[in-house]
């Protein structure tokens, strides 16, 4: 991208809600059932049916509003949005247009070395459509209406995002809030967390918006990043050539990494919104909102602050842990176990926690990125990591040895205890044993010792190596250093 353009991005996220039933009927809200198994006359749009609002969906909307600092409107109104499509049984979608449930609020994203606020424009409740299916069918399309009427929150940001990285961080943090509050499972593969982007460019320093393009069909964070980069480059090239960006909707093609035109805004549909006459306005009792506030769990940003304080780590590191809830849970469990080892070994637990966190942020995080959450269970469950860290604190294992053990455990699915025992790895830190090896080495290498004492200091390394060799690699190198120095200065 040419450096003189600034990218302006607004994101629209559709998040399916973790309700037991659909938004306007009592069909089960569940992914993966056989086609049309979860339907009834209401979500099939039969003649004569009426919508019955699921209060649980409203409650989840309130929770998200509280978590994101939105204005929660005591009165919101459902509207009908009309268009014809086979996956839309009634010929209209029940949504909220003029009076949404939530407006305002926002969240903080990482931006380079710092952070930026991304404001929320609005969040409203609506029903999902079904799914058209074309694959493997000749001369026809089939329609699965299991998804028809599943509750959604549409979360619309202000155009405050400036880079693909900010966009991805926004999505990750939003998903984290949705999960932490129990509003959604945020599963992108199953379509319960879907994202569209509005993208435009403008000259750096300008406060006017350029023509925006809507991008759809980005079903992973990686694709969002790719699509935004591609779109930015495409628009920059148009502008560089003095051409106009056309206001249109484009589809991201993950196989080529490109965006392709879908429809122009001139062909845009007239949705003929009007208030849904079958549903009275949603009126919230302020007491209900306060009740939900008191029931909110620890929110991700609160957790970041707490972890960074408790473990003495940078907020960025704490964020990495909190972004992935299973990692932070792992850390907290491991710390619990570390207390036990500290008690048994007679050392203060504070001596171990920094090592534990560092081990987690380096070794565990790397393997987690490679292999996923499976490595946090079984032979490497939280208390096993604590065991390994305790060995390091008690100087029975060097840090490098601990890392090696961890790597072996990952590959072999054995516990650290087993690997340490089998490799006879435990480190020798006892001063008696170390002193014997050191005395032997001093006696056996009189020439080198003489030269060292006369000033040839680089021979110290050679002598340490001899001690390590004698110990079969088990000697604690820090202790060998100290004791050898003392011996040589005698």
């Amino acid at each position: 991208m040419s450096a003189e353009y600034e990218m302006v991005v607004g994101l629209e996220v559709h998040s399916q809600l973790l309700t037991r039933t659909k938004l306007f009927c009592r069909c089960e809200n569940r992914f993966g059932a056989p086609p049309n198994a979860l339907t009834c006359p209401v979500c099939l749009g039969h003649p004569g049916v009426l919508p019955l609002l699921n209060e649980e969906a409203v409650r989840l909307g309130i929770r998200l509003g509280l978590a994101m600092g939105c204005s929660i409107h005591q009165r919101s109104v459902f509207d009908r949005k009309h268009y014809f499509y086979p996956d839309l049984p009634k010929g209209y979608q029940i949504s909220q247009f003029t009076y949404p449930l939530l407006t305002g609020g926002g969240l903080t994203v990482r931006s380079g070395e710092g952070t930026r606020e991304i404001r929320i424009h609005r969040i409203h409740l609506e029903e999902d459509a079904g799914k058209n299916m074309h694959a493997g069918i000749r001369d026809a399309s089939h329609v699965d209406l299991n998804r028809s009427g599943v509750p959604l929150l549409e979360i619309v940001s202000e155009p405050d995002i400036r880079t693909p990285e900010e966009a991805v961080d926004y999505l990750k943090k939003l998903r984290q809030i949705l999960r932490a509050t129990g509003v959604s499972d945020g599963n992108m593969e199953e379509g319960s967390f879907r994202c569209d982007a509005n993208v435009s460019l403008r000259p750096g320093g300008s406060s006017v918006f350029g023509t925006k393009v809507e991008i759809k069909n980005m079903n992973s964070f990686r694709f969002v990043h790719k699509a935004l980069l591609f779109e930015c480059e495409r628009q920059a090239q148009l502008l560089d050539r003095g051409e106009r960006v056309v206001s249109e909707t484009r589809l991201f093609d993950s196989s080529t990494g490109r965006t392709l035109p879908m429809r122009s805004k001139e062909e845009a549909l007239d949705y003929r919104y009007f208030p849904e006459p079958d549903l009275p306005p949603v009126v919230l009792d302020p007491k209900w909102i306060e009740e939900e506030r008191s029931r909110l769990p620890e929110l991700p940003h609160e957790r970041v602050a707490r972890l960074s304080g408790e473990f003495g780590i940078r907020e960025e590191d704490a964020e990495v842990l909190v972004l992935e809830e299973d990692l932070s849970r792992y850390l907290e469990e491991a710390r619990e176990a570390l207390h036990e080892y500290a008690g048994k070994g007679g050392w203060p637990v504070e001596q171990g926690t920094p090592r534990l966190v560092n081990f987690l942020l380096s070794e565990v995080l790397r393997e987690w990125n490679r292999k996923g959450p499976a490595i946090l269970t079984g032979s490497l469950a939280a208390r096993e990591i604590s065991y390994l860290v305790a060995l390091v604190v008690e100087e029975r294992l060097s840090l490098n040895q601990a890392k090696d053990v961890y790597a072996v455990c990952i590959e072999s699915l054995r516990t650290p205890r087993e690997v340490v025992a089998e490799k006879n790895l435990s480190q020798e830190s006892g001063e008696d044993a170390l002193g014997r090896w050191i005395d032997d080495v001093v006696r056996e290498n009189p020439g080198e010792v003489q030269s060292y004492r006369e000033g040839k200091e680089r021979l110290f390394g050679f002598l340490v190596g001899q001690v390590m060799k004698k110990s079969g690699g088990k000697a604690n190198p820090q202790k060998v250093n100290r004791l050898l120095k003392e011996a040589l200065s005698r």
Partner: protein
Amino acid sequence: MSAPFTTLESFRKGRDERAFSIEDAVRYYLDRIEGIDRALGAYLTVNPNALNRARQLDNRLARNPANSPFYGYPVAIKDNMNVLGLPTTCASRMLANFRPIENATVVERLLKAGAVILGKTNMDEFAMGSSTENSSMGVTRNPWDTGRVPGGSSGGSAVSVAAGLAPLSLGSDTGGSIRQPAAFCGVLGLKPTYGRVSRYGLVAFSSSLDQIGPFSRCAEDALELTVLVSGPDGRDMTVRDRDPQEMVREFEGSVRGMTIGIPEEFFGDGLDPEVAASLERAREVWSAEGAVFRPIRLPSASFGVNVYYLIATSEAASNLSRYDGIRYGYRSLSSGNLKDLYQNSRREGFGPEVKRRILLGTFALSAGYQDQYYRKAQQVQSLIREEFDRAFHEVDLVFAPTTPTPPFRFGEKLDDPLAMYLSDIYTISANLAGLPALSTPSWPTPSGLPVGAQLIGPAWSEGRLLRAARVLEEAVGFRTPPVSVQTAGGKVS
């Protein structure tokens, strides 16, 4: 054979004294339908299970006493309400073969009380019309003059009660579709307060105006049926939780001391003099019984038709979007792609009046016109509501004609939609204001055509409306049209 009973009360008595069986009662109506409905066309479907159900009810009655006045009572249902086992066609080619998979709430409550559904009655397609001429399933004739329309859209339900093809029926009223045909056929028709009766299972025309209500020979039966079907069902969020028994309490008594408003806007130009003369006699009856009349103003009501044809068509265009040929209903087979499938199915499946209203409603809601039409209409609707509110500070009820003219001839207004729309000019404002209103028979015209007297009340005042209707009904008496019936036993009338 003459009718073994004419009202719910006489039915209950005869049933409990075993003067006749439920099977007898149901067979009587089925025979009459068989005998004369070919000439009238009130029914689209006769329930093939009606006799079976009657026998089952008789069997149960032998062991347990009936727990409801409706136990065994035959009822006809307008063909826009779902009855399990029977088609719901809305008199449209679009739904000619549609069979619902559950009952409407009103039907469910009737069945639970033990009623027997006789069949489904003809109507204007999707309830759009004032003469039942817009049915794609055939003609329904006015039993008082078979060259005239029965009114609409609930023409079949009105005729079924007027001609003795059912003692009681249900219709739906969006702009007058119960009251106007009731007036044309000489029966009582009540449109309850919006939110009184669940619309679940009623095929929607205009969701904010539609309301289900009874056709009956007397006020008491209308009351009983309204009480039976009223109240929340957990499926229609627009139903309010009002105690139906308050209608029963308000039904008791006379009109003595009641103040009845006469809106001058409803008695001016355009009102047929024979209708006006009949209504003057009705007024005298109520006066003689102690009611006090006073003039009131409802200036915005004269815009009712204009407002109605924007709001009702906007909602109709939306409600009828679901008939797309994809999941059920009529599908054009001559379609090569999705767009053709939509267009051909809707072009071939809907009749001309339905198309006209979909077009009008789509236009009224389209981008750039919504403020001018739909929103403006909503503002006038609020004015109409406020004017009624003000009026009901001064009066207990409002008295008005139901229709500007007696029933008109077939074809008379079919090619002039505006003239047809104006036949609802007096009924529409009650729908726009969400108020309960009824039409009860007044004296016929000199040539014997029925005339309806309309009463409009404040929200939830159905009991009061019916009380006043009963007073008039006692003076006028129920008239039976001169139709002859062919039965196995020969010709009877």
